[in-house]
């Protein structure tokens, strides 16, 4: 809670810099009547100082991951992957449209992965590593409107892909 005033102050400063920008921000914030909760308000874009490169930005702050694989969840994740991810990502380390998935779970924290796949736009704008990736791929990862459960199950499938048993 203590952070709130500081956050508000930052927002205020940004609004002040951008002229009378507050109306636009409000309008865009409410334009999406549903499923836009993960979208950052535009006034936050570029506020890199607040960005945590380990956690990323989004609704996931900590994810409980078991030692062992949840096989049923991984199977669910594989189904979602087939519809929403496989067009662009291989399971090997080879790049298709985006990078291959092999080894991802050992390089990135689960929070970062789940935030990125549910909130790609805001993170591409701030994460230095993602910006570097964009220079290679040239296609911004689309927001595939994953539910929280879908995101979690995809992560479990990524673990399976990385050999977790």
């Amino acid at each position, binding site marked *: 809670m203590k952070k709130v005033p500081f956050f508000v102050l930052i927002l205020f400063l940004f609004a002040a810099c951008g002229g009378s920008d507050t*109306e*636009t921000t409000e*309008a865009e914030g*409410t*334009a*999406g*009547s*549903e*499923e836009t909760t993960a979208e950052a308000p535009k006034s936050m874009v570029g506020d890199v100082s607040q960005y945590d490169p380990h956690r990323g930005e989004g609704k996931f702050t900590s994810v409980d991951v078991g030692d062992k694989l949840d096989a049923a969840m991984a199977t669910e994740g594989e189904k979602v992957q*087939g*519809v*929403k991810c*496989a*067009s*662009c990502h*291989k399971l090997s380390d080879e790049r*298709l*449209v985006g990078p291959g998935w092999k080894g991802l779970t050992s390089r990135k924290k689960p929070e970062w992965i789940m935030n990125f796949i549910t909130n790609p736009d805001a993170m591409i704008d701030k994460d230095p590593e993602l910006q570097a990736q964009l220079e290679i791929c*040239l*296609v*911004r990862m*689309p*927001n*595939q*409107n*994953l539910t929280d459960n879908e995101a979690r199950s995809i992560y479990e499938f990524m673990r399976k892909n990385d050999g977790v048993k």
Partner: protein
Amino acid sequence: MKKQLFGLFAALVVLIGFNACKPKNTMTAVSGDAAAKAYVAPGKFDEYYNFVSGGFSGQMSVYGLPSGRLLRVIPVFSVDPEKGWGYSEETKPMLNTSHGFVPWDDLHHVELSQTNGEINGKWVFGNANNTPRVARIDLKTFKTAEILELPNSAGNHSSPFGTENTEYIVAGTRFSVPGDNDNGDVPINSYKKNFKGHISFISVDQNKGDMNLAFQIKTPGINFDLARCGRAKSHGWFFFSCYNTEQANTLLEVNASQKDKDFIMAVNWKKAEEYLKAGKGEKQKVRYAHNKYDEATHTSKSEIKTDVIVLDAAKLKDICYFIPCPKSPHGCDVDPTGEYIVGSGKLAALLPVFSFDKIQKAIADKAFDGEYDGIPVIKYDAALYGEVKKPGLGPLHTEFDGKGNAYTSFFVSSEVVKWNIKDLKVVDRQPTFYSVGHLCIPGGNTRKPSPKYLIAYNKITKDRYLPTGPELSQSAQLYDISGDKMQLILDFPTIGEPHYAQAAPADMIRNNGQYKIYKIDENKHPYVTKGEKDSKVVREGNKVHVYITAIRSHFSPDNIEGVRMGDEVYFHVTNLEQDWDVPHGFAVKGANNGELLIMPGETQTLKWVPDRPGMFPIYCTDFCSALHQEMQGYMRVSPAGSKTPLMYSLGAQSPDAEAVTEPAKK
């Protein structure tokens, strides 16, 4: 100094005075702050959505107000190759009628759905004037969801006007004709004997919006023009303007203007419902198409229906009453309280205002002037509240501001006239450029108008825009009506001919649960491809079904071989994107067809019959990413009877090479 100021003031008065006398040039009527009032800065939203009829384009357009920026053209009754409307297999049934596939119509009027006499933001209806139909557009998708054809009708002009809870949308026939069930092969000069009018009452499901032709009322053979529902105290009644009570069948310009007065027809639709329930209607055999689009399967179905129940207004005495109204009334508009009904006789030099209470009393007292073809005619004075004297020339249509004022358009004198309903005095008048038809105030036909702007939809633009050859731009004009005087603040061009339009507050429409995407896991299209692993090509005789996916920025498969001359190819394209504003397009060289424009999560089908062997590129037509120009593929077409095996792939050079997607085994 004072003298100078006075001089300036006097000059101004003189100038204004001159302008007032001679308002018909392009520069008058615009004052200094007009631009600021209509200006919406880049990146800002407009205050209102304006749904405007596209006239003979057959479509409906959506503008933002006050900027006049065109936001979207919704294809309704005419094919639209840009959006695949009427070209994709999924949308072709939407344009089916009892006459077969009809690719064009003439959309005149729009009607936003209401709850308790206020706009609710769910649907907007439009009429087809030529081949009589009513369409419902879903405002969650801005897409035509349903089209219902109307039997016993010709020239569906008096339509689509709704009741206070959109219980019904009505549709009155402009041309009277012999009923569909009667022999229509009769001499035209037997009009008085054989021609009848019909008014359709289309019920609307309050939750889903589904339309149903509940019943029709058979009337004398006259022309119906416009209509308005009663509201508040007059809920349960409907009012229709009627002309050609002379029952002329030739040179109507002269012959339908003989009488001093035509009629407004008052319909007690609650009473009609009672008769319907009591089985007083006659079931007739007719044929009409009822077409629905299903957002779960992304496909439409056309059903031919064969029954309609008709109530005869001449026999069921207390449904319909005629009220004499001067000279071929066009508008017949009910004020927000439901008490006053304004008739706009387009050849009359006055505006009659009728009183609902007086009409009720006249009916109770039987204050009739006899009958017209079996329908009681109420005495003019018994229904009249009062007349606005010498308001202008050629009154057409009236909207209301909810503050006791009415605004009437005058076609011949090209002006909008604001007048007070209670004392019937003219308050203000402003020129239009030129020949105004309908007016629109947001909510101006409801219990609660939102009286900030008034829009005039003009028939002629003449010298208002850069000329474009023989056909000039169509246009609308925006007035600020927040003050005592109307102020012209903007001209904006429109598509087709803008007849009537309605407007609603932006927040109501944009927060109505609009779709951003179609959820791919809820896609029930019979030819959906959920993921590239399921993409495939299947031959069924000479039909080749291509289950193909699109995502930034490739198709799967993108190489297809083994199609032969004589085949019919169906590209079932599923857009795998799940992000807002990422449609993909699809086109194939030489297709005698439109393109597809596929929304995220949607499946649409393009039929293609190759006309020659060879190589046919396919590509994405809607710029989708930095690699959009790479989003392409090839179709190989071999001669009839060729042995080329059916193959498809993505990322493979030949059947031998490793494919990302497994090549076909065949």
